[in-house]
């Protein structure tokens, strides 16, 4: 159970990464700019220094919206 399950929203994409890992490193490895997403675990927001361990599930939710300004 060393795998972190990640759900990317709104794409609905699911992927896995080995844990444990700090949130900041996870985002870097996924080439995601930290200020463009919420990282959610068990209905709680995570900051970049939080460690996600294997067996845990997180959601990475984009905050970018638009098309029309």
């Amino acid at each position, binding site marked *: 159970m060393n795998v972190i399950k990640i759900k990317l929203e709104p794409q609905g994409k699911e992927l896995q990464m080995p844990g444990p890992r700090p949130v900041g490193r996870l985002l870097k490895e996924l080439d995601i700019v930290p200020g463009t997403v919420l990282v959610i675990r068990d209905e709680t927001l995570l900051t*970049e220094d939080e460690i996600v361990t294997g067996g845990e599930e997180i959601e990475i939710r984009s*905050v970018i*919206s638009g098309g029309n300004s």
Partner: protein
Amino acid sequence: MKCRSCRRKAVTKLRAHNSAFCRDCFLLFFRRQVHRAIKSLRMFEPGERILVAVSGGKDSLALWDLLCSAGYNTTGLHLALGIGAYSTASREKTERFAKSRGLELIVADVTEGTEQRGVSELARRQRRSTCSVCGVIKRHYFDTIAAERGFSVIATGHNLDDEAARLLANVLRWRTDYLGKQFPVLEQREPRFIRKVRPFYLISELETATYAFLRGIDYVVEECPYAAGATQLHCKEALNRLEEAMPGTKRAFLSEFVARMQQRFSGEVERGARACQCCGRPSYGETCSFCRLTRVATRS
């Protein structure tokens, strides 16, 4: 990571403000920023009837939540745009939000005014981008409903990222007339036209999404299917890369424009909006964009 204010565990880090906050301190910080913007640009006064444009997304629902919990006199306006499952979900979330808080909501089906044609079909007929046509339709309905129902101000959830991306797009092509019209408060010269305000213009998308999440707002996370590839998203991406390297860049770019530069371009706008000859709503030509659009739509 500790909260800057109370030293409890932080739930969000805001690099642009060189800060991290716990839930309660973030909500306080967020509300203070918005109230400061409302006051400093005199967007509206307590007691004014405010029509809040609500799409069902994080920004508009966060704005409505903040304004009604601060005691402002608000009514929501949701436009059903006819964009398949996306529009259905947006309407459901908006109606659920209003019902759970006992708020008044107006829902207008825009396809009724365009012979059941959705935004994308209208765009195809006009050979324009869907986002551009969508903007025309929204502005028309906001103006019309606000005027008919006696609202004095229309508030929209445009945030810092939206406004900075719009500014960048206009600067890249030096659209000086558009730069002259970009301001968080759009005062109207004719008394029958309604003032438009953007209280979140200095609040980032990260902050509005954090606020919505922490307030338990169930918003539409899915993106509009027509937004992919839109110019605004390219500009947002470029600005986010700059922001990563130089925190605070977006805010400085926009706030300095609003404070010092925008007025230099106001002379580029030939004249203020006047009444459209067909519908009487604000227009920069004899006939407004919406009436030109519907003329094409009603042709078989």
